[in-house]
């Protein structure tokens, strides 16, 4: 059987100043297949896709699309050759309609005027063909994330793409949206299109892909049929060793209430309420998982508890002491540790050394500070001890945090925050962007923290993480807690429904509710 390859990449090598991102990479994607590319952060997946899309010229190697070599590495040429890219971060104009966004840059015209009717018709045809269920006249700002993503896909199809690249397409979606996206992708495959998707979620690979290319450290470490592999096998190829994919948790033994949040509300920038009357209690020795689609108030909740944001009403108490709207230092000193959701932005000073970062937050207290002087010896001893305990690499206290891998940066934060023996640990997206090897470490650490008697507030967009670690689960939707469950009394499906505010089973493929509570009018752009 003569097999046509939609994509052939041969010997792609791309070197960046600090890394060899792609090292003689070969990639073959057959026409009409769904091909997954998996690998840890920095494995070179994104670079390879950028080369394919013409965003980055390779130092060496060749790209052939449907048999024809891509001579110039420019997106325009890749697009002409039938490649379309759906970026991780959407590139849509909020104030324009779906149809207007789709045609943007390639407007059908009648004379000098845009042929709006033709545009709408094209969008409607495409939308109907693959089950996108998009209203061409809806404003982007009224759409849910899942629907925005579909607009991106339609945009790509509108430009005639036969090969679609999707970069981490499921990161921002609820389980239902993921299911629907997979439906769409399968329909696209039926129509003969080729799909390449980058991911680090192995479940999705097994479920959706026909074939998988695994990358590690800039090289291909395996090419397998999805039907003939397992998650464990893929993980092993990604990491280079056996990885425990799911930690097991003993029954917890909760004690007294540590954190109590009652009636907490907060105003956002535009005066809308980002938190509405939130009540939470966490006991010592207990993990409360907060599930929810990002942007539904989880960040604000965490920021208020840690003192980084002001509450407009309500009360937060820690072991009975009122900490509402107190300073971050006051709250920290009372025994609250915080693993922030963006470790590079909030958790680390990248230009500080490991030793300096390991005292961040305690630099003003004994033994690291005496009479306003920094105690370098104590800092170095402290660093040496934590490096040893947590197997931080490189094991040199003088290394700057910027030179650590993502996983080691996260270990550094975990080591620092755990070391102060907190009464309450607030962990926000503790494994986001962390390699699966390090995920194992973070999860075991969180549970050992719980078993040592700490109260743990875990906020995560990864449902599997919430389900694995939580003793109780609260679901947030549009700033409110809409449901709570015992950890093992609920499935992903049900959680997913509550996350979209559709606890009663409403399908969220309808247009999402408007984002600003004060502006409910549905948009219709005058065309």
């Amino acid at each position, binding site marked *: 059987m003569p097999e046509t390859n939609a994509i052939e990449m041969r010997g792609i090598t791309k070197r960046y100043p600090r890394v060899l991102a792609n090292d003689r990479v070969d990639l073959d994607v057959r026409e009409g297949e769904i091909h997954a590319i998996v690998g840890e952060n920095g494995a070179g997946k994104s670079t390879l896709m950028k080369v394919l899309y013409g965003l980055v010229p390779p130092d060496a190697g060749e790209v052939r699309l449907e048999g024809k070599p891509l001579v110039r590495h420019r997106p325009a040429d890749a697009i002409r050759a039938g490649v379309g890219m759906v970026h991780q971060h959407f590139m849509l104009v909020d104030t324009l309609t779906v149809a207007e966004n789709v045609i943007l840059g390639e407007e059908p015209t009648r004379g000098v005027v845009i042929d709006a009717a033709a545009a709408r018709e094209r969008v409607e045809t495409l939308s109907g063909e693959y089950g996108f269920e998009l209203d061409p006249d809806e404003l982007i700002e009224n759409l849910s994330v899942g629907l925005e993503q579909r607009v991106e896909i339609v945009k790509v199809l509108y430009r005639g793409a036969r090969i679609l690249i999707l970069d981490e397409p499921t990161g921002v979606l609820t389980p239902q949206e993921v299911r629907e996206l997979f439906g769409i992708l399968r329909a696209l495959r039926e129509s003969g299109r080729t799909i390449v998707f980058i991911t680090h979620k192995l479940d999705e690979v097994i479920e959706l892909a026909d074939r998988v290319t695994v990358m590690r450290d800039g090289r291909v470490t395996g090419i397998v049929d999805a039907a003939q592999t397992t998650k464990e096998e893929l993980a092993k190829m990604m990491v280079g060793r056996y990885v425990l994919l799911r930690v097991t948790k003993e029954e917890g033994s909760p004690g007294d209430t540590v954190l109590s949040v009652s009636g907490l509300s907060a105003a956002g920038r535009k005066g809308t309420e980002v938190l509405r009357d939130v009540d939470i209690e966490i006991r010592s020795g207990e993990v409360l998982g907060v599930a929810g689609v990002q942007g539904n108030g989880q960040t604000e909740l965490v920021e208020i508890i840690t003192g980084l944001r002001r509450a407009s009403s309500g009360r937060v108490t820690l072991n009975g002491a009122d900490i509402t709207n107190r300073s971050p230092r006051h709250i920290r000193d009372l025994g609250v540790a915080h693993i922030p959701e963006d470790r590079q932005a909030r958790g*680390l*000073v990248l230009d500080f050394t490991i030793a300096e970062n390991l005292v961040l937050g305690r630099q003003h207290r004994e033994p690291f500070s005496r009479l306003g002087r920094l105690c370098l010896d104590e800092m170095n001893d402290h660093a040496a001890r934590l490096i040893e305990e947590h197997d931080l690499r490189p094991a040199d206290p003088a290394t700057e945090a910027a030179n650590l891998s993502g996983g080691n940066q996260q270990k550094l934060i975990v080591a620092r925050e755990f070391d102060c023996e907190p009464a309450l640990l607030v962990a926000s997206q503790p494994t986001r962007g962390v390699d699966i090897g390090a995920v194992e470490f973070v999860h075991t650490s969180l549970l050992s923290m719980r078993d040592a008697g700490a109260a743990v507030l875990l906020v995560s967009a990864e449902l599997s993480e919430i389900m694995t670690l939580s003793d109780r689960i609260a679901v947030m939707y549009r700033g409110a807690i809409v449901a709570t469950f015992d950890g093992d009394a609920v499935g992903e499906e049900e959680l997913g429904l509550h996350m979209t505010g559709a606890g009663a089973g409403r399908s969220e493929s309808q247009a999402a509710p408007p984002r600003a509570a004060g502006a409910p009018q549905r948009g219709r752009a005058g065309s």
Partner: protein
Amino acid sequence: MDRWTRYAGVLSPIVAVAAAFLVGGLVVTAIGESPFRVYAILFRGAFGSVDGFGLVLFNACPLIFTGLAVAFAFRAGLFNIGGEGQLYIGSFLCAWAGLGLAGVPWWIAVPVLIAVSAVGGALWASVPGMLKARFGVHEVINTIMMNFIAIGLTSYLVINIFKEPAQMTPQTAEIASGHLPRLAGALQAVGIPMPSANPLNASILIALAAVWVAWFILYRTTFGYEVRAVGLNQDAAESAGINVRRTIVLAMITSGAFAGLVATNEVMGFRHRFLDNFSSGIGFMGIAVALLGKNTPLGVLFAALLFGVLNAGALEVDVFTDVPRELILVLQAVTIILVVVGNEIFVRRIAAREARAALADTQAEEAA
């Protein structure tokens, strides 16, 4: 790998200075002079005699203070363009206080005037600091505006209220106490033939102490740690419980205090009075000094010395050649530009070198 980065920090300014001299040489050739002769005269002016080297130190002294001011603020992520205004206020307050110290012994007057100078600069810098911390107003704009106010205000005061009677020059009377001694006498006593007319004074010792103090604060105190944390990553500092606003205000105050100490040289050590418009850009030169010195205290010291050399040598160049002394300004400006550009190039080179080393490492590992 880290060692290379550290070398680059020192090497890149040196290479830049060398390149700047090359460019300057071309300019000199274009004028029709021999660059070798001009540079020989320049360096003879600076190093050819004890007197010349005294002038180097005297010229470097105020630049050390303003360089430290800029570098310290920079560590907190602040761009203090207001050194000029801060040094005027510090100097004026120093002179004003000094006028009232008649009969006070020097061992009281000197520390008091040093403190007044620092406090004057600190006060002036605290205003943009507080505006930044409280309202988020950009300190660059406010420090510049504060410069105009300081220059205008001191000018008004010295011309209209504090002018020395029966003098044409817009300056105050001589301060009654708190003079810093010139160093010529002490140096002669140990056998160094410094001419008595050389203006080098004890302020240079204060400047050297200030370099050490700035280093100590930044790298050995909790406050300095917090300043650097705020400067490098404000959000992480905030998360760690550091009071970012307070740190910003305190960093500006510290920065302003360094600028204010220029008074120790200009008022206490040299003129013994406040002269209207005396600075002519010492505060602004501090920005260049800090830049060349990579915003480290020791770097500031060396950069200020280089500028001191250029300034001292400029006199001789002016006298003995056809090259205008403005060449020195060109040289200084070219140096700064090359430092900035050179730094970029160095950083990239180093990064590429590290990448190659990392690759070699992984290949070695695989081979093993």
